[in-house]
């Protein structure tokens, strides 16, 4: 074996010691640093997820707090625009309205629902007879019913004698033929509150 001078042996020893120290550092410290970096990033992600989940929870808590109010609005909306034609409720409401406003309901003729995109309309022909003032009140009241209605067309004429006799109304009554539309939104899900759109009377 080649003999080294004392100086070279010292240098070799120092080099070996340095290699050992650096090797130890590489084996023990560097991986830890790497893991620490990875963990820090993961902690940031998890914290962000946690914050997002917390916000979502708070938001959903709000939905839960408003659940009773939402159910009540559901019921009103289902009365206004039900998911079926719901003719019984409509007929009852029209009859009540005619009675309240003092006009005679002479005829109701509903047609089959027609699609209008995301909703359907139920065309209904109506005929009422009454005094001019009562008829106007009836027409205005039609716009304020629980069921959302649209008057698309109306023809007002003088009620003839035969009609007047049949309906036992006052003289100078007018005969009004109305075309109205009631609306419905066919339900795609079945989670509407129970009892929605039930007839009121």
């Amino acid at each position, binding site marked *: 074996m080649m003999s080294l001078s*004392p100086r070279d042996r*010292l240098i070799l020893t*120092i080099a070996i*010691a340095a290699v*050992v*120290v650096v090797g*130890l*550092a590489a084996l*023990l*410290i560097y991986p*830890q*640093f790497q*893991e620490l970096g990875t*963990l*820090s990033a*993961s*902690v940031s992600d*998890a*914290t962000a997820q*946690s914050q997002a*989940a917390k916000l*979502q*929870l708070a*938001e*959903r808590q709000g*939905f*839960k707090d*408003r*659940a009773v109010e*939402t159910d009540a*609005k*559901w019921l*009103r*909306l289902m009365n206004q*625009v039900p998911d079926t034609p719901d003719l019984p409720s409509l007929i009852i409401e029209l009859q009540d309205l005619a009675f309240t406003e003092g006009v005679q309901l002479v005829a109701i003729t509903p047609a089959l629902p027609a699609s209008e*995109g995301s*909703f359907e*309309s139920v065309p209904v022909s109506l005929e009422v007879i009454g005094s*001019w003032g009562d008829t*106007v009140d009836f*027409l*205005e009241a*039609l*716009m*304020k019913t629980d069921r*959302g209605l*649209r*008057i*698309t*067309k*109306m023809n*007002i*004429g*003088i009620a003839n*004698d035969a009609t007047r006799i049949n309906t036992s109304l006052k003289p*100078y009554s007018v005969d009004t033929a109305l075309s109205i539309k009631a*609306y419905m*939104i066919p339900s795609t*899900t079945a*989670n509407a509150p129970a009892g929605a759109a039930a007839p009121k009377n």
Partner: protein
Amino acid sequence: MLRINLLPREVLDRQRFEGWYRYVFIISIGLVLIVLMSAAGLYVLVQQKSDELQNARDLAQQYAEQGKAFDVFEKKEKEFTDRQAIAQTALSDRMNLGKIAEEVSLVLPDEVWLDSLSLDEKAGLTFGGNTPRSRNEGMNQSYKSVAKTLVRLNALPEVTDVWLSNAQNGSWGSWDAASNITTPTTVVQFTTAAKIVKTPESLSAQSVK
């Protein structure tokens, strides 16, 4: 006294460099200790970070599970909102034709009455009116009532493009309720057409609930 080192140079060198080994050893041990302590410290930090990560994940999962339990309320409200928007579309721009009919009746001159009134959201307004006509043609001013009617109709904000379709002399059966007798009256009969437009006043104030 003079001291002379008679040792050979190699021995002297060896003695001189061997003295350094002690320092090299001490420094190496020191550095190794520092490395080990750093590694231990880092290990503790890594453990803390791992715990922190686990806690954050547990918390996120806990929130997510609680949130999932309330998911049904969010779905219901969203469905309500969607349905409300559709209902709003269906019921938007409803014209209050009853109000327009009443306004037409209010602006008619006293001497004019209607046989018929038709209102259509798209086609507009048409009506058949009558105004009394004097049997003495020399004194007849009835067509002025027709003109007055057109002017007054034009004044209504919901009514535009008022047009007289026809006006002519005719007779109208005046019915008396008490005697149930219809007496013919000389009149000017006229028909009028107009468009109806949407104004804030003519739209139904009722919104989707």
